């Protein structure tokens, strides 16, 4: 079956603009995670959704970052008023539930000029 997909694969934006990154998890996966990998850094947890529970937003670096998951499936990560330090690869992952292997998408490379 199809894996996790993300769009766009690449996004170049100007500082101060808003961006939206999309993630389509594997069908039936109840848990969805967002991570980012900045240059020279490991993957950094941002936020996760599990079923209908309130999302864990503990990893979001600032209030410019938000995410939603509609209908328990597709998720959108929004970054408002982008800054150059937001440049990174943003990865989405999904799993059957908590404590299960996470399957990653190919990522969105965000470049803020």
């Amino acid at each position, binding site marked *: 079956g199809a894996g*996790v997909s993300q769009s766009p694969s690449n996004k170049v934006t100007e500082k101060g603009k808003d961006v939206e990154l999309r993630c389509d998890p594997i069908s039936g996966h109840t848990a969805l995670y967002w*991570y980012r990998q900045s240059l020279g850094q*490991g*993957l*950094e947890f941002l936020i*996760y959704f599990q079923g209908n529970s309130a999302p*864990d937003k503990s990893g979001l670096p600032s209030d410019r970052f938000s995410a939603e998951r509609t209908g328990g499936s597709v998720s959108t990560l929004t970054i408002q008023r982008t800054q150059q330090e937001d440049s990174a690869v943003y*990865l989405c992952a999904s799993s059957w539930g908590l404590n299960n292997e996470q399957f990653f998408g190919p990522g969105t490379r965000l470049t803020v000029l």
Partner: protein
Amino acid sequence: DQQVKQNSPSLSVQEGRISILNCDYTNSMFDYFLWYKKYPAEGPTFLISISSIKDKNEDGRFTVFLNKSAKHLSLHIVPSQPGDSAVYFCAADDTSGTYKYIFGTGTRLKVLA
């Protein structure tokens, strides 16, 4: 504050020899560890995991060793193959109950033919 550390950014190994990738962690509460492999322009893919109740887990050419007293784990690949060339991430399961993974910065393995 990096809770999961991979101190070797890169490693080169001759085909057929053993590759040993190392990972150290600081949080003694971590109880589940994973290795992910990442090819360029793709998301990380799960490779192997180990629970803290074990000290070794083997899957084909891949073996993960866990030394809890030293807070150290290692991934052994034997024999190494050119297709193993990738970036390898060590990850630990945050035991706060949210199952978000904390990743190391990765080690780039190059297997020379």
